[in-house]
Each structure stands twice: as C-alpha cells, then as structure tokens.
C-alpha cells in the first residue's frame, strides 16, 4: 500500500534534517501507528508522503504510484486528516464534503449516500448545512474526517486525529479505522496516545529526531509481556534527558 524508501527532508532555513533516511512499508489491510515525541518527525513524514511538502532524497510509493513522478494517481489513493483541522470555513459542511467528493471524482449518487452515511455516523447531520466557521473544534475535525473518507481512499492518513474529540467521536473513529482496514484498506496515523496505538495498531513505528528507531509488531510485542509505554520511553530516554 505504502512504501517509503530512504526518505530525507530538511526544511528551508534549517541546518538539520527533520527526517533522515527513513524507510518503512505499510501493508494492505493494516493499521500502522506512528509514535514519537513532539518534533520527532512524524508530521514531516506524513506531509512528505501526502505531497504537502517536497523532500530532497528518497522515494514514496502509494499503491505503486510515485508521489513525485505520478502524483495525481498517488494522491487519488490517499485520504488525509490534518492535525490542525484546517478547512474552507466559509463553506457549509455539505458544500465542503461535496467539493472534496467532486475533486476526487466521486459520482453523485455515491457522494450523496456517503455524505449522509458519514454525517449520521459522526453525529453531524444537523450541522451539515451550517457554515463551518460556526463549528466547534471537534466538529471541524469530524468534517475533515468525512472529507478525507469521501472517496473511500486506499490509504487513510491521520495526523494526531483524536485530539480534542469527545469519547463518542473517538470510539466512532476507532471503529471506522477497523472497518476501513477490514475492507482491505490501510490506515496510518500519528499519535501521542500510546495506549490507543497499542490497542488499535497492527504495527507501530517509533521515530525520534527524524530517525526511525524501531518498527514493532504489536501482537508479538504484547506476547512478550512488556509495556509499550515503557519501551517507548526507554528508546527515547537519552534525548528526553538532553
């Protein structure tokens, strides 16, 4: 589904790499977690693989399409939820979802049924015709999620998706992640919530200072009886002390 090979990214006006020589693969029908402290390089990696920011070295393949060379095909397979729930807030929720559906080429009937289905599922039916400007933080996050899923993407990418959401919405999103995975699609998300990552993910990547430290198979790790939280803190301990 997603192949990242030797990805390196250095921002303009920065003398160090935000992500360096990072390689990983996300398989079909898998939920993949990204763990790391603030500034570790999680968001930068996500922004590189979705095409938001350019990168100097490496290769990103989404469903076999190179994000640089064949970007339109690669992007057609991604649904992205940003960490800052940015949307065109002068539009209504329905207008925004319709716009995103149109942009991804979703046909009218499918579009209508998906908007209604997601709105009902994420308790957004009553808010759908209101201008997004009036939405709360959680509602904006939910409309972003609806817009990201409107074309039923093969790869659903979420950057810190559950911050500020109510417990019902969190449960709903977790359920949909599992459902999305069951349909043969993949989910990649970054989080600080180690408990949730451990419960939800098949595999977890731990990233620190732009380097991939380890990829953990959660089920196998759980069999060892160790705590993922302790393991994560141990792995990133030196840097935290610094």
């Amino acid at each position, binding site marked *: 589904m997603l192949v990242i090979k030797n990805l390196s990214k250095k921002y303009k006006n920065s003398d160090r790499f935000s992500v360096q020589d990072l390689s990983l693969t996300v398989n079909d029908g898998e939920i993949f977690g990204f763990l790391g402290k603030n500034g570790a390089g999680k968001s930068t990696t996500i922004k590189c693989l979705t095409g938001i920011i350019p990168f100097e070295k490496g290769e990103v393949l989404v469903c076999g399409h190179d994000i640089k060379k064949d970007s339109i095909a690669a992007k057609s397979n991604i649904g992205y939820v940003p960490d800052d729930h940015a949307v065109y807030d002068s539009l209504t929720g329905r207008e925004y979802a319709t716009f995103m559906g149109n942009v991804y080429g979703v046909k009218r009937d499918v*579009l209508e049924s998906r908007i209604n289905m997601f709105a009902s599922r994420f308790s957004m039916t009553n808010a759908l015709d209101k201008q997004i400007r009036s939405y709360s933080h959680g509602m904006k996050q939910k409309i972003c999620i609806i817009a990201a899923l409107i074309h039923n993407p093969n790869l659903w990418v979420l950057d810190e998706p559950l911050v500020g959401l109510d417990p019902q919405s969190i449960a709903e999103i977790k359920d949909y992640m599992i459902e999305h995975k069951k349909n043969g699609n993949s989910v990649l998300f970054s989080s600080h919530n180690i408990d949730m990552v451990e419960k939800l993910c098949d595999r977890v990547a731990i990233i620190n200072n732009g380097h991939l430290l380890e990829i953990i198979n959660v089920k196998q790790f759980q069999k060892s009886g160790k705590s993922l939280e302790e393991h994560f803190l141990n792995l990133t301990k030196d840097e935290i002390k610094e």
Partner: protein
Amino acid sequence: MTKFQALLKFELMTNSSRYKGEGFFFRLRKILLTIIGAGVLASIFLFAINMVMGVFVEANMAHEFITIFSALMMLLHLILGVITATKILFTKVDLSILKLPVGGIDIFLAKFLYVYLKQLSFSLLISLPTFILFGIKTMQTALFYILLLPNVLFLPIIPVLLAVLLSVPVMGLIRIFKNKFMILLLFYTLVLIAGFTVYIYVLKFVLNIFESGHFSFDSSTVYAIKQFASYLHLPLLFKNILLCYNYFKSLTILLALVLILSALVYLFAKYLYFSLLNSSKNQRAFSKRTKIKYHRPTTAFVQKEFKTIFRSTNYAFQYLTIVFTTPLMVYFSSEIVSNVSTPSLGSSVLPGIVVLVLIMFLSMGTSFSATSITREGGNFFLTKIIPVSFTKQITVKFLIYLLISIPAIFVSCLVLAMANFITYSSALIIASALSFVIIGSICNSISMDIKRPQFEYIENGELSSSTKNTSASIGIGFTISLVMGIAGIVLSLFVSVPSMYLVLFGFGVPFALIELFRLFYKLEQRYERIEV
C-alpha cells in the same frame, strides 16, 4: 507594569500584527514607509486645505472655516471611531481574555483607550497642522497656540465616546446582515461610490481654485455658509475655545458633555458590554441547504473560489467592489484629468488619459490576484493533497480574475465612449489592448505569490492587511499606467492617435505572453516547492 498597562499593550500588539513574524529591518522599513506615506498624504491634504482656507479667510469667514473644519473632523472621528470601536469591542475580541484575573472595566478601558489613541493620532496628523496653518494665516497670538493642543486632544473624545455607544446598534445591524452577502456587497459598493463621489467633488473644487488662481464665494454663498456654521453647536464650542470667545462657558459645556457621555459609557461597560459581547459570539450561523451535485474538478474549484470570495466581506470588497466600481471611478477621474489637460493640450490627449486612469484603477483590482496562494492560509495543504494538477488549480484562479476584470475594462471603455471622451472604435481598441496588459499583470501577480506566499498575514482564516506582493503588484501596475499613459499622451500629441494604439498592443501582447509563460512554465515544480 500594572494590569491595565499590560492590557493596553496587549491591545496595541494584537492590533498591529501585520508586522508579526518579520525581521527588525523589515519592520523598521515598513514603519518608515508608513510614516513617509502618511506624511505625503498629509502634505497633499494640507496643500489643498491651505487653498480652501485662503478662500474662507478672504471672504471674512475664518471663524466659519474653523467651525466647519471641526465639524468635519468630528464627523470623520465618529465614522472611523464607530468602525474601530465595533471591531475592537465586539468582532475582534478573543474571549479567552475574559478568563484572565483582570477586571472587566480594565479590559474595556484598555480597548476604549486604543480606539481613542487611534483617533488621536489621526487628529495629530490632520487637525494639528491645519490649526497651525490657520494660526499663521490669520496671525493669531501665542495664546492660540497654547489652546491649540488641548483642542486637538479634546476633538476626538466626544466622537469616540459616541462611537462606543453607537457600536451597539451597529453590532446589531452586523448581526442582522452578517450572512446577507449580496446586500453587504451592494452596501459596500454604494459606500465606495458615495465616498469617491464626495472626494471627486472636493477635488474639483480645489482644482477650480488652483486652475483659476483665484476663487471667491458670492454673497449668497457666504450668507448660506455663515448660516450653516451657526447651527453647528458642538463644533462652535471648539471654535470658541480655540479663539477665546466665551472661553469658560464653552469649556464648561464641553466638559459637562464629556462627563455625561463618559457616565453613559461607564454604565454601558459595567452593565451591558460583556453580556452583549458573549451574545455576539453566539450568533446564529450561516446556513444553506445545498443539493449535492456532481461537477468536474475544475467546475468544483470555480464554485469554491467564488464562494470563498463572495462570502467574505473583506475579500468581496477587496476584489468585487473595487472591480465593479472601476467604470465609475475611471469616468470621474478621466473627467477631472481631461478638464485640467484638454484646455492646454487639446482633446487628442484623451485616449492617453483614459489609458493612464484605466490601468491605474484596474491595478488595484488585479492586485487581489497577488494573494492567490496566501489567501489559502491554513488550507494550503489541501491544494497539495488533492488529485488535481497545480496547473489546473492556478488556471481556475487566473480565469476567475480574468472573467471579472476583462468585462470591467470593456464596460469602463463603453462608459467613456458614451460620455464622448473617446470614440466607440477607440474604446474597442483600447479595451482590447488593455486586456492584454491586465492578463500580464494578473499572471505577474500570481507568479509573485507562488514565489513567496505570505501565510503569516492570515488571521482567523482571512487575510486582512495588504501583503508585500499586493504592494508590489499595485506598484508595478501604477508604473505601467504612468509609462503607458504618458507615452500615449505624447504620441497622440506629437505623432498620431493610431501610433498610441500600436504602442499599446506592442507592449500589451508581449507582456501578456511573457507573463503567461513565466506563470505556467515549470509551474508544477515551483508550486511543489512551496512549504507550509
């Protein structure tokens, strides 16, 4: 630093955020440029007011001049005060400030002081030099100059106090019309037309004095002005204080008025303001049930672009209002410039004048395209993740600007032809040639924004101040307007009018082609390099 000082500093800092995120030298340059710009505008104003003042003094109406000037300044302070007060007290308030351990009155007072200081700076820039000029012209004593400073400080107080009270019904009107986008667009267009018409009439009056070298009121006008001034009771108090007539009586009445208004403002702040503020933040949201339709990505983009411009008062004014009023502004300005120039140069210069004025006004509208990328703000990432090529996205933006600007050029030229400034054939040729110039200008403006978008200027999801790219776009537009206009005037005077058309096309067509190439060549790579 006391809590009140901290609050005032907070108001001053949050309301000058356009300098945010920039280096020291950039801020210094911007501040210096602002001072120079304000100085130039004030000088032009003083030059004009000096002439008007001369006419009044000559007609033995020096006192009437001070009264009418004070009245106009108070009216201006009131209008600007209501705009600022509504923004500072209601629409631009971060409610988190209410959670701080500071008194409500302190918060209100800091906001009030900010509104007053803003008006005071205006008073110091305009009223103070005008009064000094008046003093010199009418040979006032030293006492006049001593009384002048408190007058300048006092002049904005009553309008600001009134403005605070008036901000409540204004806020009510904003609530009613907030989501009536078409009504708002019409309202702003009418306000701009009215303001521009007043400006043109004042300019005509000044030019008339300047042109004839002498202007005097006839006896009936003098009588009417004197009668009018005698009814301006509040400004008369200021005139009396400044010129030492009934000094103590006038001062007492003025102070009493300030005290009454201050008491009303205090009661408003204590019992009404915060409940109104909370209710203003819980307004009914704009709601519209839309049918879900399937559109091609390009059409979906056009709709989205149009809605984001149309539903923002700020953007609709910056672009739609400016472009819609262009024909009227061009007509008035051409009339003034031609009145000044044709008696000495002849009517053959009119096409050149039309070119100068048209490009100048169109540049203001097209400068909006210099924020094509910047305006995306936090949503910029969306333009990167969607499966639509950057070329297609930029083409849509370019076409939207073109679809509004090109008709504005043709309508402006048609209006000028109907008013007999130019012939219909000239109008068609000029409009066609200028369409190329505008295509070039729009492409150049978008290219600048792609090269260096300025997302740091976005506040609360909207761009509320002009960016460096906007200024550069206007600067380039004005330069082209001056060069092409002057070349047009010279050519039509010394060679022939058709030679001017040739030069217009000779510049416009290559300019459009070069800028189109600059915009679209390797656009994908250049757009991809933009970082958020």
